[in-house]
Structure formats: structure tokens, C-alpha cells
């Protein structure tokens, strides 16, 4: 069971992600809505994948990504942005900061696991198996 940390501040989308990742992705999901909780949770729980929103309270997804990539303990954890901020410049910034991929909202929940696996494929990791 792949351990996934999700940072998402919208409670409705939290429910959808938890359901999809648990039922279809067979993942062990922990969720936070607070940006400044992501880094300490990543250090404590050692997730194998992080799904990050950009607009989060207290700390943006971009800032979190920088922190995670700067720490030797968390730098190898794949980060996928899952966000409504989908302007080309925002996508470019995420990729420059070291994100593995970028998924735009709204997403098709039934296709999400496949899309995540496609992004994870170079690393030989997959969810939903």
C-alpha cells in the first residue's frame, strides 16, 4: 500500500481524493489542509508520494515544494501538483521547482489513478495495484 500525503484545502475535494486514492488507488492516505503542516508531516510519515495543491493556507504549494526538495530526507519523494492554478507560467514554475508532474483541476476521478501512474512510471512506482 503506497503512502500518499495530500495537501488540499477544499473539504469537498479532500473527500473525493481520499475516496479515489483509497478505493481505486489502494493507497494509505493522509490529508492536510494547511500548507505549513506538509513539511513536518512528510518528515514524520515518510510518504512515497505527495499530491500538492498550490493555493494553501499559511504556505503555498510552491514554497512547500522548495522546502521538500531542499531537505535530504524528503527530496526524493515524488511531488505531483494537483491544482486549479493552471496558467502556463504556474505549471512551468512547479516543474522548475522539481515537481514530477502537474495535474489540473477539475480532474476525472475515475482517470486520476491512471494519470498519477503515468507520471510515476519513470520511477517504477504505481498505485492501485
Amino acid at each position, binding site marked *: 500500500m503506497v503512502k500518499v500525503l495530500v495537501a488540499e484545502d477544499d473539504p469537498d475535494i479532500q473527500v*473525493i481524493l481520499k475516496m*479515489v486514492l483509497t478505493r*481505486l488507488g489502494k493507497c494509505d492516505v493522509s490529508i492536510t489542509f494547511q500548507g505549513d503542516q506538509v513539511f513536518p508531516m512528510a518528515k514524520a510519515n515518510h510518504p512515497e508520494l505527495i499530491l500538492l495543491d498550490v493555493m494553501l493556507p499559511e504556505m503555498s504549494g510552491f514554497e512547500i515544494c522548495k522546502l521538500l526538495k531542499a531537505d535530504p530526507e524528503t527530496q526524493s519523494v515524488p511531488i505531483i501538483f494537483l491544482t*486549479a*492554478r*493552471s*496558467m502556463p507560467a504556474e505549471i512551468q514554475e512547479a516543474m522548475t521547482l522539481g515537481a514530477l508532474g502537474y495535474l489540473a483541476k*477539475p480532474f476525472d*476521478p*475515475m482517470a486520476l489513478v491512471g494519470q498519477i501512474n503515468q507520471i510515476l512510471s519513470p520511477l517504477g512506482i504505481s498505485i492501485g495495484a
Partner: protein
Amino acid sequence: MDNPQLSFEQILNATVRMLRTTWNAKVCLFLQKDDQGELCVRAADGLSSKKTSSVKLDPAQGDIGECFSKNKIVETSAFTAFGALSPLIKRHAKKGYKFVLVPVSGETRVLGILFFGPFPNKEKILPREAELRSAGALCAVLSAHWRLYQWMSNFVPQLNHELRTPLTAVQGSIGMVLGGMFGQVGGDVKEMLEMAQKGCERTVRAIEDYINTQNPR
């Protein structure tokens, strides 16, 4: 414009330079009221922009207040009354010379001031009021355009985000129901949900089309 990539800052600075040379002045500044209600230097020629960037002036004080509040062109030799600007114009502030303050007026209010000079006291500036006000109006138009551009730059990504977030919940819920996560749906229920899903997809396409056609420059 030869170079479409010129920023509004460059365009404003070029305009101020053009005004300075046209009026044969040594200094020309465009002071604009900022969100805190103070006048700050938006464009400068004849003074280093490094030095002028920190200048903040009270739009209600002295000659500046006279120009800004009363929408009036003011000639002044009170060189020491310009707060943080006074030390910067000191070398140009000679006896027998004056500076001219021109209101930069929008349709309904004064947005800022054009600060020109020095001119010899004997030079008659006020009879050329129409020319001066046109120079002010030019800066007002550029300033309004710049503000609109800045507003659009923030508005478009914000709109994108604000529309996509609730759509994610709507489309996600419908997608899970249609995908059979809670059991099979059929008949009229399925048809209605598919209709709602198509509506969501159409909205997303409309947002994407809108963003792709936005180019505020």
C-alpha cells in the same frame, strides 16, 4: 511601437523623457497616488530612479496639495517643501528658477502630478496650460492602462482558480457516481448525470479558451 515587449514601466519612463526634452527641463517626474494614499515616483527622467524609488509625498501638503487637491497647475520656488524629493532636486534648485506641478487627471479625479523643471522664473509657463494638461492626460491614460494590465494579470489566474475549484467537486462527484463507485446507475438518472457532466466539461473548455485568448499586453 517598434518593440511590443516594452513594459509599461519603460513606456512611462520614455514618455516622461519625451516630456522633459520637449519642455527643455532638467527633471521630469510622474508622481502617482499609491494604494496607501501617498504620492510615489512612477516614472522619472533627470534623476536616478534608484534614488526616487523610495520617495513618498503627502498629496495634501503645500504646493503639492494645491496642485493635487484643486486640480490646478502650480509654479513654485519652494524647493525645500517637497519632503524626500527636496534633497534630490537640490542641485537644480537655483535662485531665479521654479518648478511646475501639473495635475495628472483622469475622468473623475486627479491620479497624480507631473513635476517639471527647473524653468527660469521669467519663463511664462501658465499660458501653455492646455499643452501641460495634455501632457498630464497622456500620463493618466498610460497609468490607467498600466493599472488595468496589472488588474488583468491578477484577475485571470484568480478567475481560473475560483471557477475550477468548485467545478472539481461537482465534476468529481458526478464522475464517481457515473463511474460506478457507489453501484451502477442507469436510465434517467444516468442520462441526467451525463448531462451535468457535459455541462461541467463545457465550462472547463470555456475557461481554457478564455485563458488562451488573454494577452493583456
